[in-house]
Structure formats: structure tokens, C-alpha cells
């Protein structure tokens, strides 16, 4: 005998749980992306700050 509706409904519950886990993992990964972008932005600003060409003044 093939899959019954009861087995499918158990699967659906399992899928619901997996979906919640995947969603949580996606949100955590999104937080990491924000941190990564922030780090890159600060690195870029530091490079601008330490670039001698930005410290030249008119003589």
C-alpha cells in the first residue's frame, strides 16, 4: 500500500518544523550579512582616512 493521508499529514508537520528552522537560519544568516557589510564599509572608510592623498592641504 502507498502513502496514506495520515502519513502525509505527519510529513506536513515535519515540513512545517523544517520550514521554521530554515526561516530561523535565513534570518541569522541575514544578520551576518549586515555585519559583513558593516565591516566592509568601516574598512573602506579606514582606507579613505589613511590615504595620504586625502590629507594634502593647499600650500
Amino acid at each position, binding site marked *: 500500500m*502507498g502513502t*496514506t493521508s495520515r502519513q502525509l499529514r505527519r510529513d506536513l508537520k515535519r515540513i512545517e518544523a523544517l*520550514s521554521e528552522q530554515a526561516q530561523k*537560519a*535565513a534570518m*541569522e544568516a541575514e544578520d551576518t550579512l549586515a555585519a559583513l557589510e558593516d565591516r*566592509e564599509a568601516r574598512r573602506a572608510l579606514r582606507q579613505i582616512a589613511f590615504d595620504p592623498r586625502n590629507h594634502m592641504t593647499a600650500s
Partner: protein
Amino acid sequence: MPQRTIQQATVQLDAMAEVLSPQLLAPYMEELEGAQAGAQEMAHRHQDQQGAHAEALSEEIQLGLREIRERFGELVAEGVAGRLTSREYDQQWSALRRRQRELESRVGELSGAADQLDEIEANPVAWADRTFYEKFPGIRPEFSF
């Protein structure tokens, strides 16, 4: 010979039972039972096909979501370790989200399959009658009454 749904044949036979003796009714009862057995077989075939398709879809969705969950974890590790630029990270993150949404969009199909299996399991003959014989008069069983 008239083609009828199981429901129509049952109503007709009930009417005949009021005027015919059990002995005279017996052959017509056998016809109806034969038609019910045919309807049940049709329902069970559909049940097997639908069940197999739903099972395969369920496995695909479960496996896919597990992989996505793990891959998000790996992505975080790669990002924290500085092995990806934010652009590369974003691209991979977006691809995983698209795949997640694609899988989740198919859950409705699975839920519909479960509903249909419920109906078939509850009364396979009635289900086959409603689904096939009522809608497609050409395939209705023939009765001598």
C-alpha cells in the same frame, strides 16, 4: 444498456427492491456489486498514484529544506571567517531564499493531496463515482436495469 453512476444505479435498484423478490433482484445486485468493485479499483489505483507522487514530493521538500538549513549555517561560517565578500554572501543568501520559497510554495500541493487521499480512504466507491462517473458519462458502467 443504460449507463449510470453508482449512485443512480443504487437508487434504481432500491426502487426495484420494493417490487421484486430477492431471487429476482439477485442478478441486478450482482451487477451493482461488480460496478462498485470496479469503482473501488479505480479509486485505489488513483490512490496509489497520488500517494506515490505525494511521497516523492514530500521527500523532495524535506530534503531540500534540510539542505537549505545546513547551507545557511555554512554560509554564516564562511562570512564570519571572511572568506566571502558581502556581495558574494548576498548572492548565495538570495539563491538559498529563492529555493526555500520555491519548496514552500509546493506545500499546498501536498496538503491538497492529503485532502484527496482522505476522501478516497473514507469512501473509495463514492469518490470514484463523484470524480469520474458523474463528470464523464461515457465511462459510466452499463447496467441491464
